[in-house]
C-alpha cells in the first residue's frame, strides 16, 4: 500500500487558511512581505498559533496533517529558497543526500 493523505474537501476546509496564505505567494509583493515579517504575514491570514508554528518550522509533514496541499505549500518553499526535493526528503524523514541516493539518476551519472 502506498501511504497517502487524500486531499478531500474536508481536509481542504481544515487547511483553508494555511493554503490561502501559501497561494498568496504567487505575487512577488506578497513574497517580499512574507520574508520581511513572517509572523505579521501569518496574522494577516488569521493562522492559528499551531499553523503559524508549522510555517515557522517549515514543517511540511505537519502542514499535510493540518490540511495543507503540497502544490500550494510549495509556494512557501519557493519563497524561502527551498525546492520540491528538499521538501520531499523532509517528509520522508531523510536528508536530501539520503533521498537522492534512492533515485536512478545518481546510479548513472557523476
Amino acid at each position, binding site marked *: 500500500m*502506498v501511504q*497517502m493523505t487524500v486531499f478531500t474537501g474536508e481536509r*481542504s476546509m481544515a487547511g*483553508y487558511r494555511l493554503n490561502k496564505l501559501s*497561494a498568496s505567494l504567487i505575487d512577488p509583493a506578497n513574497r517580499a512581505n512574507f520574508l520581511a515579517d513572517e509572523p505579521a504575514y501569518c496574522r494577516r491570514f488569521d493562522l492559528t498559533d499551531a499553523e503559524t508554528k508549522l510555517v515557522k518550522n517549515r514543517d511540511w509533514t505537519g502542514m*499535510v496533517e493540518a490540511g495543507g496541499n503540497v502544490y500550494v505549500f510549495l509556494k512557501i518553499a519557493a519563497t524561502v529558497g527551498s525546492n520540491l526535493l528538499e521538501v520531499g526528503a523532509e517528509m*520522508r524523514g531523510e536528508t536530501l543526500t539520503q533521498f537522492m541516493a534512492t533515485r536512478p*539518476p545518481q546510479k548513472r551519472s557523476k
Partner: protein
Amino acid sequence: MGQIVGGIGVSHAPSLARAYDEGKGEDPVWRDIFKSYEPAAEWLKALEPDALVVVYNDHVNQFFFDAYPTFALGVANTFAQADEGWGKRPLPDLQGDSDLGWHIARSLVADEFDPTICQEMVVDHGVYSILPFLMPPPWETPIVPLAVNVIQHPLPTAQRCFNIGAAIGRAVTSFRDARIVIIATGGMSHQLHGTDFGHLAPDWDNEFLDLLESEPEALCELNHLDYMQRGGAESVEVIMWLVMRGAMGSRVRNIHRAYFAPMLTGYGLVCFESA
C-alpha cells in the same frame, strides 16, 4: 468541418521546465528524454495544426479553493504565464483562439457538459513545462486550454474525462474547417507528499500507455483510489489523458511513444492519430 488530426499524451513536471531553462539537452540524465520529444515535435509541426486544445490541471495558480472548478475552459485570445512562486520563466504568453473556444463552450454546454468559462486565465507549468519541448517558441499556434480538477476531491471520474473528450471531439467536428491537435498533460506515476514521496511505478505507467491505445474503456472503469494506489496519490492526474483519448474516436494508431522515470515523475509520451 473541423478535424482532430492528432492527439498527444505527455507528462508535465516542474523538473522539465528547469531542465529546459538550464539547457540540459546534453546532460547524461536528460539527453534521451530531450531526444524523445523531437519526433513528437516534428510530427506536430508536419500536422500544421490551426489550434491546440490543451488539457491540463492548474496547480492553485489561477484557481483557489474559494471556487475551484471541476472543468474550466479558457476562452480568450491570450493567456499569460503564471508566476507559481519562483517567478516567471523567460517565455512568451500563449495565444488563444476565442472563436474555437466559444464554439467548444457552446457545443459542450449543449451536449450537457458545463465547464466554467474563463476570459482571463493564467496558465502554469501544466502547460508551460512541456509545450516548449513539443513546439519551440515563439508560439504562433493558438491554444484553447481546458483545466481539470485533479487536486481537491471529489474529482471527475476517469469515465467523465473520457466522455468530455468525446464531446470535445464532436465540438471540433461541428467547427469550421480547421486542423486541431488535442494535447493532455499530467502524471504519470508520482507522489509528492508524505513518507512515500517519490513513489514511481514504471510497470503500471507502461500498462496505462498500452491500455490507453487499445483498451481505454478498462481505464475508464478504474476509480481514483485505484490510480492513486498504483501510481501514487498525485498520479491520479493521468486521468486527464482520457480526455485526449475520448476525443480521438474508437481506434487510434500510435505514432510515437516514450517513457522515462529518472527522478520523481514518470515522463510518458504518446502521439496518436485516429485510425
